[in-house]
């Protein structure tokens, strides 16, 4: 079924290429719209819900008492208010950082080893399911990342500076690709992340299922691969710079509708 759709879509693309370049990008957008129904992220959502409610880890406990910012066990609406400051850890945390906290404190896992586990392996796979389901529980809601605590404000300022930080052999910063509207790399449109780029775009589009690799990517993995392509050294999983960037992008996206878990190329 899918092969036929791909063949048809490619035929549409090559036919379109003879006209203007814009129709090549349009044809791909149509292909993606066709695929949007039947997003394999659904499979990860189902797994995530099971993992939230399943007794796991050395303490044989479920995650149902995990506080994602709106109180223990409250999942609906939590995703669109992250990252935020948490009293129990005394720091600003994004979703994945908070899951590390809960998996360690409630279930007895070692969060440091989970952070060191490569993407797609071990408990990182658990996190893929969890972020798919937790984000789905806020689907259609609008981002409202808080800026009330001093540390939340500080993270915004540091996130902004990190966003514009040019370095590495290519002199790239996040802003090199995401600092202006209407640009693209090859045929991949780039959202402008210094402001709200719109509903379901940019910050509002992750976690997402990446069709090209058949993988579920959370925001941490997305940032990790951004830094790889910027030719930077390796950002630690849930490290300070990743949280600060999440605050910067999340606050900028205030009001945008979340479509996570989304479908990407």
């Amino acid at each position: 079924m899918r092969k036929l759709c791909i063949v048809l879509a490619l035929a549409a693309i090559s036919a379109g290429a003879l006209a203007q370049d814009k129709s090549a990008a349009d044809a791909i957008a149509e292909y993606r719209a066709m695929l949007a129904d039947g997003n394999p992220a659904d499979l990860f959502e189902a797994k995530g819900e099971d993992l939230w409610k399943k007794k796991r880890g050395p303490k044989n406990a479920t995650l149902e008492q995990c506080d994602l910012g709106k109180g223990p066990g409250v999942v609906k609406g939590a995703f669109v208010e992250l990252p935020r400051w948490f009293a129990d850890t005394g720091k600003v945390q994004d979703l994945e950082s908070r899951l590390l906290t809960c998996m360690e404190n409630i279930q007895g896992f070692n969060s440091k080893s989970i952070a060191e586990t490569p993407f797609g392996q071990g408990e990182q796979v658990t996190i893929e399911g969890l972020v798919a389901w937790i984000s789905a529980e806020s689907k259609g809601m609008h981002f409202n990342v808080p800026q009330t605590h001093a540390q939340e404000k500080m993270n915004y300022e540091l996130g902004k500076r990190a966003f514009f930080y040019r370095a590495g052999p290519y002199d790239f910063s996040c802003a090199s690709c995401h600092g202006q509207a209407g640009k693209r790399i090859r045929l991949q449109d780039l959202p402008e992340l210094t402001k709200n780029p719109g509903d379901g775009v940019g910050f509002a589009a992750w976690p997402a299922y990446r069709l090209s690799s058949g993988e579920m990517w959370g925001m941490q993995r997305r940032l990790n691969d951004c830094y790889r392509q910027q030719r930077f050294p390796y950002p630690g999983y849930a490290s300070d710079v990743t949280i600060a960037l999440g605050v910067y992008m999340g606050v900028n996206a205030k009001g945008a509708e979340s479509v996570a878990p989304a479908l990407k190329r």
Partner: protein
Amino acid sequence: MQKIKALALAMAATVVAGCASLTPGPDYDALLKKMMDDSFRSEGIATKDRLVQDAANEACSKAQGENPPDEIVAAIQQAALKSVRMPSDGKFTGDWREGEKLAQNGRGMTWSDKTALPKDNGGNCLNCHQVTKEEVSYGTIGPSLYHYGKDRGVQDPESMESRPIVEYTWTKIYNSKSYNACSGMPRFGHGGLLDEMQMKHLMALILDPKSPVNQ
């Protein structure tokens, strides 16, 4: 006695309040530096020293999308111009066919690449630029290079007649910051990303009248 004490306290409070407003905000430069240092580690060829910013990157980062002050822009551009090494044999172009392969190649310099040698790097050109008419999968971060040589009237890139535009083009590829302090384009020659021969192939791709770019 009470009155004097109250007055003294009021004066103390005023002084303290005055001090509070004079206290500077957080030292974001220092906090940023610490955050970057704490957050990254070396991986493969992408070592942690890549976080160190030179004067150009530091100034352009602080400007956050705007231009740095004029004197700084001038200084960056002058230093960049000084860094440019013209081709060792005086010949500026190579083979546009090789240039096209390089332009299509987006690999190189990431932590998942095996070496940092120019021979293993691509030009990454199509990520940001249109190059030929045929290749529709091009980026729009940089201007279109289609008809680059043709539009500039280049009939023989090795002629003295074309020397000014050819030298300009070479300089741009070697160190883009020579003409634009905060250019988004990597510094292919200065950064050791591509070697002289590779850059000549790219020159041919956009300047050779026979190249598909100029058809």
